[in-house]
């Protein structure tokens, strides 16, 4: 299987372990990724919070690049990028006026038929059975809280991905590794991604609620599919600990990292050593190497 | 606006039970639509003969709308289903001889769809306005009058 790849800015910086682990895992799963040549930033929240046209035009440019590379499917591992790409495509196709404006900005006709998919959708296409057949390390002793955040499932009319209130597709994929998943309440609650830098207080508060609920429901680890969620949930645990000294840390892994462990990759290969919250204990639980 | 907008002439053949009642409901609800349409009330879409449509064009219509009950809702149970089959054949034939879906329209509007009636009729009027007066038919009409 060949799939287009739009890493987005985060995967080249704060989320580089996501990129590392994803490329390794996908190659084990016989998925070839073809990166879009000279892609640019999708504009993220900053664009769509302040300039609507810009927020549609930037993703549109990337979609056109993908189209020119004849990519049928485009993987956007970052949930924020995924949301911007698929959202822009939806808006353009449902609003002729906007389409004209975007074409004016891009100076070309917008005719991209490339389908944007997220990492969970890609793994669904690979198939649970395939993952299961390649598992080298059973994760049966760990309990996972799957965190979807806002941008994978919302707005549901656009992403058409899973149930907006109680998504279960990530749990389904993870079951292939033998790991148990927990029922919890904050699967789709926002971590405050957009405020990551400007309003640390908000992010700290939201992240703490998410972390606490996962622990309360018995999770050993939180699994995410978004570098923004990851940096909030992983990095912010220090700040949380400062405010609430009793806070006990819980490791936060990318979905690709968790699957990577199951497929026998070690912690370093997956970039788990780059996290702020130590995942050594977790790796020991399944007798995996750091 | 300086130039006069073209006011198309639309004839609508509608069934008494669904579309006519739906159009009544649009009135009862005080919804507004463009006045370019004249309704001819028939008991059922099953009563609508393609010759009506041709005659309407002959008499100067720029567009024709045929509207009745949704399948399953027919007051006479099956009238609209027989009509639907007839309309498939006739609309294809008309399209083939050059009267396409911009002039010949079909819709299902139920008795409770006053809003839909308004949307449909406005859409029909706008579409016909866009393609302009039916000059081609008017030409053979005119020649006919001279001929007589």
């Amino acid at each position, binding site marked *: 299987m060949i799939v287009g790849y739009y890493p987005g800015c985060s995967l080249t910086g704060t989320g580089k372990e996501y990129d590392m682990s994803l490329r390794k895992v996908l190659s084990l799963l016989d998925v070839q990724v073809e990166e879009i040549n000279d892609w640019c930033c999708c504009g993220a929240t900053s664009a769509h919070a302040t300039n609507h046209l810009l927020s549609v035009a930037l993703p549109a440019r990337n979609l056109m690049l993908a189209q020119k590379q004849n990519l049928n499917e485009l993987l956007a591992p970052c949930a924020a990028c995924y949301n911007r790409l698929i959202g822009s495509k939806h808006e353009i196709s449902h609003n002729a006026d906007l389409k004209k404006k975007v074409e004016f900005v891009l100076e070309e006709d917008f005719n991209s038929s490339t389908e944007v998919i997220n990492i969970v959708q890609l793994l669904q296409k690979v198939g649970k059975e395939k993952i299961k057949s390649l598992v080298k390390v059973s994760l049966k002793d760990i309990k996972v809280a799957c965190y979807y955040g806002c941008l994978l499932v919302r707005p549901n009319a656009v992403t058409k991905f899973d149930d907006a209130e109680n998504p279960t597709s990530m749990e389904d994929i993870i079951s292939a590794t033998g790991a148990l998943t927990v029922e919890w309440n904050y699967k789709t609650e926002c971590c405050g991604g957009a405020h990551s830098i400007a309003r640390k207080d908000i992010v700290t508060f939201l992240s703490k609620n998410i972390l606490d609920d996962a622990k309360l429901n018995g999770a050993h680890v939180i699994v995410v599919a978004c570098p923004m969620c990851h940096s909030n949930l992983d990095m912010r645990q220090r700040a949380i600990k400062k405010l609430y000294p009793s806070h006990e840390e819980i490791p936060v892994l990318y979905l690709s990292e968790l699957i990577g462990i199951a497929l026998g990759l070690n912690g370093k290969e997956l970039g788990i050593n780059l996290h702020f919250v130590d995942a050594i204990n977790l790796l020991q639980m399944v007798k995996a190497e750091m | 606006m300086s130039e006069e907008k073209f006011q198309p002439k639309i004839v609508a053949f509608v069934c008494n039970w669904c579309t006519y009642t739906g159009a009544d409901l649009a009135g*009862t609800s005080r919804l507004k639509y463009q006045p370019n349409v004249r309704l001819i009330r028939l008991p059922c879409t099953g009563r609508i003969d393609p010759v009506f449509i041709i005659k309407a064009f002959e008499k100067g219509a720029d567009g024709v709308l045929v509207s009745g009950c949704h399948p399953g809702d027919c007051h006479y149970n099956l009238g609209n289903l027989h009509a639907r089959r007839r309309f498939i054949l006739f609309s294809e034939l008309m399209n083939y001889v050059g009267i396409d879906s911009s002039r010949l329209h079909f819709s299902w509007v139920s008795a409770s769809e006053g809003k839909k009636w308004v949307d449909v009729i406005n859409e029909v009027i706008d579409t016909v306005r866009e393609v302009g007066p039916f000059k081609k038919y008017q030409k053979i009409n005119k020649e006919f009058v001279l001929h007589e």
Partner: protein
Amino acid sequence: MKIGVFVCHCGENIGKTVDCATVAQRAAKIPGVAYSVDNKYMCSDPGQNVIKNAIREKKLDAVVVASCSPHMHEKTFRKAAADAGINKYLCEIANVREQCSWVHDNIPDATDKALDLVRIAVEKVKRNIPLTAIRVPVTKRALVIGGGISGIQAALDIANSGFEVVLVEKEPSIGGHMSQLSETFPTLDCSQCILTPRMVEVYQHPKIKLLTYSEVEKVEGFIGNFTVTIKKKARSIDEEKCTGCGLCIQKCPIKKKAFNEFEEGLATRPAIYVPFPQAVPNIPVIDRSVCTYYQTGKCQMCLKVCGREAILFEQQDTLVTEEVGSIVIATGYKLYSIDKKPEDSEIKGYGEYGYGKYKDVIDGLQFERIASASGPTNGEILRPSDKTQPKKIVFIQCVGSRDEQKGFSYCSKICCMYTAKHAMLYKHKVHDGEAYVFYMDIRAGGKMYEEFVRRAIEEDGVKYIRGRVSKIYRQNGKYIVKGEDTIAGMPVVIDADMVVLATAMVAQPNASKLAQTIGVPYDKYGFYQEVHPKLRPVEVSTAGVFLAGACQSPKDIPESVAMASAAAAKSLVLFGSDYLEREPTVAVVNEANCAGCFYCLKVCPYNAIEKKEVKNKLGEIIDYIAHVNAGLCQGCGTCNATCPSKSIELIGFNDEQIYAEINAFSESFV
């Protein structure tokens, strides 16, 4: 032919946008129009007298009234015309209100259109011929579909007037949702106590034929003369032999397996069961989907204990036909079920409330069962998950109602009242408990209704919070309810023990199927459509069919009962005469031209076309041509449109009339 045109102003309704005087003046110039006049209110007595006098004085042959929709006043004006001595079918209506003045703003445009509509009607009426209504006999017998409180009331009213009633109920017992309720607002009297005597009365009534566990399969015919096919589902019981002793139920080994519909899943029942102790008839039914015998071929315990050998494992569904003159539809409602999103439905469900996931998040009918003295907890308020008494309970209104995104945009009308009742019952039973109600508006229009809600708030201390709840989740054994008090402008979080959702009343899932069987229009929600929202609220466009209760829209018990009596009264009006007059708009064959291809026969929905023999002088059959049975013809005209040579025509809407209407159109735009 001398035609009179009468243009109605309908007060301001037409006159505001249509220049009626101009229309009348210009109509006078239409060839054939001998008299033309406008009037403030044509339908009023003085207005009708204008028509009658003109007919007499000007010796008019036909009239056109430009007024409201023919569906409103065609009858009125036809009668006025007939009173003045012309055939009533020589009166046509130009609909210049619903389809002109009310939908257009521009006076010149509306006036032009009104004149066109008059011209079209004039051209038609010129070609109308005097007709005589067709008389058909009336079968003085009614079918009532649905045995809830509405169906019961309608059946009793008709039967007590001396006419036979066939009452069809799809469940094993009559009683409907009312039999599930605990107490009823605003009087708090026990639902079962007031309902059961009515149920028994139905059962014992000599004029009522009760068919439970049965469904209507097919309806043929027309007003006064319906033939109804009813499927009696196999109960697996010989109804004649069964005494209702209940021994079989006690001995059934499937004690606690089957989903108990009556208890809304809060309890279980055996495979052979009666839905509830007061069931009418008190005859059990075997649920074949769970019965051991049907699943494995073994057991037959019920048969062994039955002293009367009333168990019939081999019983089959049977079809019975009934001849009736009127049909009352009283099929009621269902509650919006939100645990699982139905396939092929646009309902999204409320994942954020966790209904179906959390046992203690329940709907209104489940709370009724919990509060009911005969319910699974014997009336004690206990939460389903662990049978403990909830100390903090949250009620949420408008779940599925007034919600375009996840439910329906309409208001379910009764939830404000039953929620107040629920909260009140809770407070009466759990004195130290706290009850919260999240509401958007309190709609308590009804006798003693507002007073009832105020009592809940002021005397029983139920805390009303204005705002919708966004999310419910479980944490530390509590249900965290996140809401917003929009009056205070403050978020509200309540750690409740139990949550009751006032879910929407929705149409029965198969409502549209029954509608299509009978030929009843329904709205986009599946509720049956009345002919006129104000003046003909229990009639539907199919004559002889009437509506009662919540199948038409959400309504409470008193409204349902009132509507049922109204539907019964409508049936009785029908039964008041031996014959019915039917519109004479039927098809006739031009026998000289008919080539006998019988495409008309193929398309006729009523099998009204017969093959008529053509004989030569020797009496030998030489050909067949089409013939219309006027008793069966309903006047759809499909035959007319199908006939290639137009040798069959629909009286009242014949080719000549329609041609004239199209022709009038062309003149109008010249």
